[in-house]
């Protein structure tokens, strides 16, 4: 009898459960997926979507990727796994390419969904839309720099499963159309973007009026120079205009570049200016990349934040290794080629003085002396021997130079040996090297200083660094203006813009309009914007890459001549090694001498071929879409 009650109870419970409709029971909203409606229902959610899109921007040679910075003979890669950078003879045709149409599709979807969403206010919507378009234009710009014209897809495409893909196959646009697109987008979205009043340090991490104008200035300048200098390499072009811009368009582009740069310089799109906060000019220069609070120089940055998951380890990779927070570092070693290119304070070029007129070595009482009296950007960019990082002097010297001219050195960091004619061990080589083929030592005799974060913990794996990567900064805008003005024949204006940048670096003797030459423009960008991802694209657009990296080896004699010439060969990174002179009783005993050395790992010579001007578009892409024409010279 009791069992019947139990059965009835069970049946009742079950039947009540069954009262729910099938549709109610089965159709459950997934908890791990945000629906499109929800994502576009309020500004905070849209910002989350947008944040992901910001995060996927593509840069070249950034703090997230040290070794693309270490290339191009501007530095020596002091990590044995990357020594191939100086052992190979040039680059593959596919190098530097990017083809992320998945990203473009998501940007297009973002814009489409934003358009039809109904729960956002009009100003919010306009601002988000402008940001999405900015990111899309900036990525197309990145693609164009690498690949020339690419299919310009501005709506999300969808496949109808019919088996036919013809209507999804788009041909490449002309290179000029790509630049026109970037310039036009910048113009159209400018009004909807906020002005960076420099109230918050993080404002520059998002698109602003200033960022749009900086992008426009750079894009127009690139297009102008490709039009002008492309004439010197007619073989780097395609008949359909996918690569190469007609020379007669140069003036219009340069004019546009100058106008866009002027908008930023005049202050109408934000409070930008040169960073000038520290008395020591070298310190001041390196602080541009360190100072996050109210930095007037930053126009558009990729920001990082400690303990947020978005951090980078650039300082750990490149810090002076001796006594560092982690037993590693020292990877990027700026080459002597780069170091000697910095001007003396009288605006002249000269090699680092290591011998006197008759060829005898010069003895320096302080290690940093040979680099004195130069452009402050040298010491701001490069960690010179005899300087300090985080309060600890770097210990860069290869050994003792004995009285007979021979070198007495060791093969391990800070090794101790007994010098000939003495008793007792003493250190015969610096703790930071340089030692040939010993990774993480300063094999070129120098370490990098740019982007090295002086904060405690920045060089430890558990903490990392939150220094931003500056994509667009004010000094570049000034140099863009200078170049555009120079190309338009307005040398006086060009000198005016350039001298502002130079004065900040301690080069207070202004250049006269007559002194502004193409070589000067090239040099100024190399000195100011080193390791900021410009060297490759600048050399490409001026069409001098195949001359500078021509695949021939360099001799030491060639290294120290023609400094400051735009087409000077730069195929192998040379080193400058310091030695302590050992000759007891001699007046020069204990002083420093320097020697030019080619690190033994450097066996290749960079050869930039015509086929490298535009990165290859993969066979798989061209097989999928036969309308994509092949790059020239490949």
């Amino acid at each position, binding site marked *: 009898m009791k069992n019947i009650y139990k059965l009835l109870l069970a049946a009742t419970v079950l039947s009540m459960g069954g009262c729910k409709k099938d549709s109610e029971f089965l159709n459950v909203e997934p908890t791990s997926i945000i629906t499109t409606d929800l994502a576009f229902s309020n500004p905070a959610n849209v910002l989350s979507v947008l944040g992901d899109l910001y995060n996927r921007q593509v840069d070249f040679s950034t703090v997230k990727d040290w070794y693309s910075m270490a290339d191009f003979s501007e530095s020596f890669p002091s990590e044995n796994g990357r020594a191939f950078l100086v052992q190979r*003879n040039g680059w593959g045709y596919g190098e530097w390419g990017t083809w992320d149409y998945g990203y473009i599709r998501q940007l297009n979807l973002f814009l489409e969904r934003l358009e039809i969403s109904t729960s956002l206010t009009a100003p919010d919507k306009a601002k988000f839309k402008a940001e999405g378009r900015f990111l899309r234009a900036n990525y197309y710009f990145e693609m164009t720099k690498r690949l020339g014209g690419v299919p310009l897809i501005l709506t999300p495409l969808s496949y109808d499963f019919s088996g036919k893909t013809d209507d999804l196959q788009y041909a490449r646009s002309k290179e000029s159309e790509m630049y026109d697109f970037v310039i036009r987008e910048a113009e159209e979205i400018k009004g909807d973007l906020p002005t960076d009043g420099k109230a918050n340090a993080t404002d520059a991490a998002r698109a602003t009026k200033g960022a749009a104008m900086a992008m426009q200035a750079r894009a127009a300048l690139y297009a102008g120079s490709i039009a002008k200098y492309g004439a010197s390499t*007619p*073989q780097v072009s395609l*008949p359909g205009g996918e690569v190469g811009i007609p020379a007669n368009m140069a003036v219009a582009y340069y004019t546009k570049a100058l106008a866009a740069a002027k908008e930023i310089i005049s202050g109408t799109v934000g409070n930008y200016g040169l960073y000038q906060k520290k008395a020591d000019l070298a310190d001041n220069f390196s602080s541009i990349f360190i100072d996050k609070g109210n930095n007037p120089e930053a126009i558009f940055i990729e920001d990082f934040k400690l303990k947020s998951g978005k951090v980078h380890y650039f300082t750990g990779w490149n810090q002076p290794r001796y006594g560092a927070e982690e037993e590693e570092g020292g990877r990027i070693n700026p080459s002597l080629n780069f170091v000697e290119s910095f001007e003396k304070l009288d605006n002249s070029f000269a090699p680092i003085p290591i011998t006197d007129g008759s060829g005898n070595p010069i003895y320096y009482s302080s290690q940093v002396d040979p680099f004195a009296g130069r452009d402050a950007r040298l010491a701001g960019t490069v960690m010179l021997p005899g300087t300090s990082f985080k309060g600890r002097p770097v210990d860069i010297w290869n050994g003792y130079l004995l009285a007979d001219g021979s070198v007495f050195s060791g093969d391990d960091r800070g090794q101790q040996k007994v010098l000939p004619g003495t008793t007792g061990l003493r250190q015969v080589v610096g703790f930071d090297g340089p030692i040939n083929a010993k990774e993480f030592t300063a094999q070129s005799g120098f370490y990098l200083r740019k982007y090295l974060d002086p904060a405690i913990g920045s060089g430890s794996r558990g903490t990392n660094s939150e220094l931003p990567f500056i994509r667009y900064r004010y000094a570049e805008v000034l140099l863009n203006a200078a170049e555009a003005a120079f190309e338009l024949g307005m040398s006086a204006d060009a000198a005016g813009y350039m001298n502002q940048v130079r004065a900040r670096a301690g080069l207070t003797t202004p250049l006269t309009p007559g002194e502004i030459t193409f070589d000067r423009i090239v040099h100024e960008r190399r000195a100011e914007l080193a390791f900021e991802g410009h060297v490759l694209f600048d050399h490409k657009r001026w069409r001098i890459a*195949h001359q500078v990296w*021509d*695949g*021939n*080896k360099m001799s030491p004699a060639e290294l120290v001549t023609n400094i400051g010439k735009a087409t000077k060969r730069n195929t192998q990174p040379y080193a400058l090694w310091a030695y302590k002179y050992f000759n007891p009783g001699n007046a020069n005993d204990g002083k420093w001498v320097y020697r030019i050395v080619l690190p033994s790992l450097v066996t*290749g*010579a960079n*050869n930039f*071929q*015509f*086929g490298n001007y535009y990165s290859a578009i993969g*066979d*798989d892409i061209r*097989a*999928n879409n036969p309308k994509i024409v*092949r790059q*020239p*010279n*490949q």
Partner: protein
Amino acid sequence: MRIKFQFIGMLALMISAASCKKDNFDAPTSSLKGKLVYQGEAINVEHDRVPFELYQYGFGKVGAIVQTFAQDGTYSSLLFNGTFKLIVPNGQGPFKWKQTAAGAPDSVTINMNGSQVLDLEVTPYYLIRTPQITAAGGKVMSNFKIEKIVTDATAKDIENVTLYVNKTQFVSGADNIANTGIGGGAITDLNNVILSATIPNIVPTQNFVFARIGLKIAGVEDRIFSPVVKLTF
């Protein structure tokens, strides 16, 4: 736990039975060999610099098999039997490769059915004729003629001519221990060009070097070379 040996036996049987299936293709065996020639004369180029591409159609997506010519202009590939098309891409090599009317490189059709030798006829802009390279007194001396082959509207100037010396058999702008060059404008007599280079100290010491002459054509990337010679001194 007791190990059941019959299971292990069964497992071994299953594995060996599964391996019975033939799961691999034979490697290609037909060899295609040849060299770059102009009227029967080999064209010498830089090692691993001038590419050619082989295409085989009929298997869905098309991608090239890319290879490069050796220093003496020879090439060799191991291929499956079938029909291939060979091109030298535009802008590669110190020579003119046949082009279609549209400006694309014209292809050579190759029917592979067993091994074959196929020389590729090209038209170099210049040729280095009768190179005489000798070594004596710590120097490498060379004497040669330059012949301009292409003289029509597409003719190109000489940018420079360089004598390269190296301690290994790979001799080029990237691989050399000594070189001496002369600009195209400084050459007075194309029929008598003399270049000499000093042999630097070689560590470890060796009593021979390799040398050849490379000619850079204006607006063309790859140099054309004379054959490599080994010089003992």
